């Protein structure tokens, strides 16, 4: 075992998880096979809204190798419908039942009607084609603004399409607008996007001898276990859920999906393992989507650029059903609606509406990209209205560094921040004056170049249970996180985390955290995750929580191990436990580093049982960390675009990001998260859009027309950072998984508006597709 004096935390260690991934030896769900497995294929609705008149499964059942064709009726013994885990105190949420297989009617294209189970991966697809479903089409509700106004109803029994309405208000809005010299209003659209991890979902359920093992591509194995147990009437300890290698999630796998329940149910019923691997076409139509908000945004300011009031009314198109957290998602944005600005009065009113579309739920950023988009495009709009420089207006309203921890109008307390510093840092990389000169020159050559900024903060590290839980915002679960640290006989370490990473590199980051504290090398620290059969109860990965919450749990559990080890060492070295420190790879007495014990030596004593009197043998500790506060990463991004005004095509020329996620654990991983986040945001701003036609047919049903950007569409990203530790956890860390996504869309949009300003364009909504940009130019020119 080697151990260096230099801490591992903060170093760009290359990842422990990579050797299996780069050699093709990783195991995703579809890579796992069990003897006797039956394949499942779903029969899905081609209709957006219809009653099911009849289902004829006879031809499918008669095919060779087909074991069963199940419908909703066959699964009548389920204890309940799919879960929705948000019960906000004092708010009524319409929550019609959502069954894993449709019962009586279908509500969106792709709604599952039946499932075919058979021996062969290909033959079940043939059989599914043979299931004959007679539908009686019903009128569809597609446009959210029409849907909220009245019939037709997605769930006729409700007599309304409204899901809920929820308001978060702080400060005196009326007074704020009264104090304003200028009030502007915009209709701001955050369009519907897909999570689109490159690995689609997949499940492999194996019910044997009263116990169920489910392999599923999920971010939340423990939630899935809980609901599988509840819905199937199984005792929880009989259910083991394993998230093996997961090929990306982005929120789309933060869910309890019907296919998971169906596979488990079928495995129990048929006594065989059951496997289902989602196709991309299925993924585009039934894996939950995100965003889809139409907002009326009003901002008031004084002539000298003080924002006095901010009012956002959101109509959120939630699709056909509530899934795990569907109606909550827009609310997550409400907490940071005022962005990084000191605004006395901020009100967010959210109305959720059902439509005959795929449900929405958390997708990377979940509510916060929408909020950030709104405030950041509005800051530009206001600057223009006031004739104040865009960055000056931001500076005039930034929450000053001295205010932190800063209570804002929305009722949360921003943990730490230094917005001036990140903007200043950005401007070290982006010379705005030089850019303006270049821009003017290029315009003379007919090239329309623009620059856009986004100074953002967000709320993450979900979450203090007292705020988000049943007594707070109303999420039906504590969102603490667990960790267990086990030192083995030889001083090697296994860490069990309740988070469930799927690409973020937590095996490496957590190993770094543990290694420093125990004086070992990260190579002997193994991090186990995503398996409810090992380690303590956990809560999974979402809301940029894994490090700030899960990592903190790891740190605390490790500290408990250290405390016990110190007692053992103190007894051996005849010193006081508080005088024992870890340095140079050894537990030694402060001031006399030559005398000391390695972790292996300590573990030897702990496991032989020669521990001090009154102490239990063993060296292993568990922590449940429930943070006191969220964390609030922030930063400043700049985007430079060229717009081909003849075609409307936008090309990102340069993207510079300064992010502050507190103390860095592994700079390599942080950069990776920021890169991916920015690409996600640029994707949304310029390329991606889930489109349904007026009949509720999904137009963007595959990667042919759901346009994820490729390497050829994106530039290199230039990154820098500031470091403002968070007081919310002992490591001073903040989340970074969503920051890039949250910051990017307004930077891109503001850049396009800046480029087109000389043509009279003053505003444009995403997605900034060539046709929309071109048309906006035409309209501006015609004015």
């Amino acid at each position, binding site marked *: 075992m080697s151990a260096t004096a230099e801490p591992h935390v903060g170093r760009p260690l290359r990842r422990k998880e990579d050797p299996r991934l780069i050699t093709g030896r990783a195991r995703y769900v579809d890579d796992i096979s069990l003897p006797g497995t039956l394949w499942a294929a779903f029969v899905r609705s081609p209709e957006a809204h219809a009653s099911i008149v009849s289902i004829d499964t006879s031809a499918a059942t008669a095919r060779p190798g087909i074991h069963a064709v199940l419908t909703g009726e066959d699964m009548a013994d389920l204890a309940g419908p799919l879960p929705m885990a948000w019960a906000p105190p004092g708010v009524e949420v319409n929550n019609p039942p959502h069954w894993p297989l449709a019962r009586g009617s279908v509500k969106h294209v792709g709604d599952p009607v039946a499932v075919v189970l058979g021996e062969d*991966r290909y033959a079940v697809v043939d059989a599914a084609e043979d299931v004959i479903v007679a539908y009686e089409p019903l009128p569809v509700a597609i446009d959210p603004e029409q849907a909220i106004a009245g019939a037709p109803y997605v769930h006729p029994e409700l007599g309304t399409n409204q899901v809920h309405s929820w308001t978060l208000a702080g400060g005196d809005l009326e007074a704020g607008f009264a104090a304003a010299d200028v009030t502007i209003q915009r209709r701001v659209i955050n369009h519907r996007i897909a999570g689109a991890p490159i690995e689609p979902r997949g499940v492999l359920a194996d019910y044997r001898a009263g116990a169920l093992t489910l392999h599923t591509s999920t971010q939340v194995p423990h939630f899935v276990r809980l609901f599988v147990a509840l819905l199937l009437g199984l005792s929880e300890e009989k259910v083991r859920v394993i998230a093996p290698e997961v090929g990306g999630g982005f929120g789309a796998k933060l869910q309890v999906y019907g296919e998971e329940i169906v596979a488990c149910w079928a495995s129990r019923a048929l006594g065989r393992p059951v496997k289902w691997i989602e196709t991309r076409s299925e993924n585009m139509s039934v894996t939950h989507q995100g965003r889809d908000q139409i907002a009326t945004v009003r901002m008031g300011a004084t002539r000298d650029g003080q924002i006095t009031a901010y009012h956002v009314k959101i109509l959120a198109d939630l699709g056909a059903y509530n899934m795990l957290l569907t109606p909550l998602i827009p609310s997550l944005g409400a907490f940071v609606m005022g962005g990084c600005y000191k605004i006395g009065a901020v009100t967010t009113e959210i109305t959720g509406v059902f439509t005959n579309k795929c449900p929405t739920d958390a997708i990377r950023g979940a509510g916060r990209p929408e909020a950030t988009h709104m405030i950041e495009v509005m800051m530009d709009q206001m600057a223009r209205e006031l004739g104040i420089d865009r960055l000056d207006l931001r500076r005039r309203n930034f929450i000053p560094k001295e205010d932190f921890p800063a209570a804002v109008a929305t009722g949360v307390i921003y943990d730490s921040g230094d917005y001036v510093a990140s903007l200043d840092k950005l401007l070290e990389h982006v010379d705005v004056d030089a850019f303006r000169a270049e821009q003017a020159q290029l315009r003379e050559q007919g090239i329309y170049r623009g620059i856009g900024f986004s100074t953002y903060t967000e709320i993450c590290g979900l979450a203090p249970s007292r705020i988000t839980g049943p007594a707070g915002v109303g999420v039906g679960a504590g969102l603490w996180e667990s960790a267990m640290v086990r030192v083995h006989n030889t001083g090697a370490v296994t860490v069990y985390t309740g988070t469930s990473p799927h690409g973020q590199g937590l095996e490496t980051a957590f190993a770094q955290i543990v290694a420093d504290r125990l004086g070992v090398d990260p190579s002997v620290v193994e991090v186990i995750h995503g398996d409810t059969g090992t380690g303590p109860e956990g809560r999974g990965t979402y809301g940029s929580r894994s490090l700030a919450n899960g990592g903190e749990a790891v740190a605390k559990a490790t500290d408990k191990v250290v405390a016990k080890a110190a007692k053992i060492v103190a007894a051996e070295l005849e010193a006081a436990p508080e005088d024992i420190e870890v340095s140079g790879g050894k537990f030694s007495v402060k001031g006399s580093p030559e005398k000391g014990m390695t972790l292996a030596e300590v573990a030897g004593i702990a496991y032989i049982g020669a521990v001090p009197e009154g102490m239990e043998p063993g060296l292993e500790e568990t922590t449940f960390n429930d943070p006191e506060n969220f964390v609030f990463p922030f930063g400043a991004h700049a985007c430079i675009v060229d717009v081909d005004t003849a075609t409307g095509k936008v090309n990102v020329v340069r993207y510079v990001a300064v992010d502050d996620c507190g103390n860095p654990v592994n700079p390599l991983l942080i950069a990776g998260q920021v890169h991916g986040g920015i690409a996600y945001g640029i994707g949304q701003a310029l*390329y991606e859009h889930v489109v349904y036609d007026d009949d509720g047919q999904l137009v*963007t049903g595959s990667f042919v*027309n759901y*346009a994820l950007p*490729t390497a050829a569409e994106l530039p290199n990203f230039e990154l820098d950072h500031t470091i403002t530790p968070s007081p919310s956890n002992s490591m001073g860390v903040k989340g970074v998984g969503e920051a890039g996504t949250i910051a990017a869309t307004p930077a891109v949009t503001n850049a396009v508006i800046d480029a087109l300003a000389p043509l009279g364009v003053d505003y444009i909504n995403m997605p900034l*597709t*060539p046709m929309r940009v071109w*048309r906006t130019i035409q309209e501006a020119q015609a004015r």
Partner: protein
Amino acid sequence: MITAEFDYQRVSSVADAVAALQAGGEDAKLLAGGHSLVPLMKLRLAAPSRLIDISGVPGLAGIERDGAQWRIGALTPHARLAASDVGLLNRVAATIADPQVRNRGTIGGSLAHGDPASDLPAAVLALDGSVVAHGPDGERTIAASAFFSDYMETALAPDEMLCEVRVPAMDGYGFGYEKFHRRAEDWAVVAVAAAVKVLDGACVDVRVALTNMASTPLRAGAVEAALRGQPATAEAVAAAAQRAAEGTDPPADLDADADYKCHLARVLCERALVAALAPA
């Protein structure tokens, strides 16, 4: 994701392919690179009962200069064409999809598929190329102008195989291909192919064809007529390009309505002509 079932037959000569087509009936299909057919079959938008794999037929993958024309074997993959000296077609082939697709897709399949959004059909049309087809009655040559009959329909009889594509060598011409798509790997929203010959400062010959502006690739006759004989100037090109959408009937889709496509055709036409006029 999974195709319907079919019978599979590998053939090693053109005659066997034609015989297999005849024996296979209406539902039999030739399989070349499979990069148009297999994707359709996987989505079950096509379900031929029999596939006749011609990819192993020898002698059909190659490019040869034969006097004043190029002879391109039907099985020549896009990647080979892109790396070749065949004027216009090389730069067009390089814009097709991505490297993996270009390694598999063939010029024969691309033309036989008859998709107006494909890139090579308009290019072959622009050059007044032709295809050589073999059927039960032997060989015939079909001019490109008579080949594309409707959306995904061509003049090939069900029992005919396309064996070769011929295009004039176009020595002394300049070429341009302007493909507008949202991402580098995408199909064309609209594309314009141009070949222009300039003599003494005048455009003595002008060929322009359009991708995805109707149910078949189209020649932009109005543009050609407007520019032919005119000086090779930016003004003349701009004026001629204004006529690029004449006689077109573009289908609206997700990325573009008809209006916008017509506008794109004019913009791209001008750019393609400018490229064709640029010194090589």
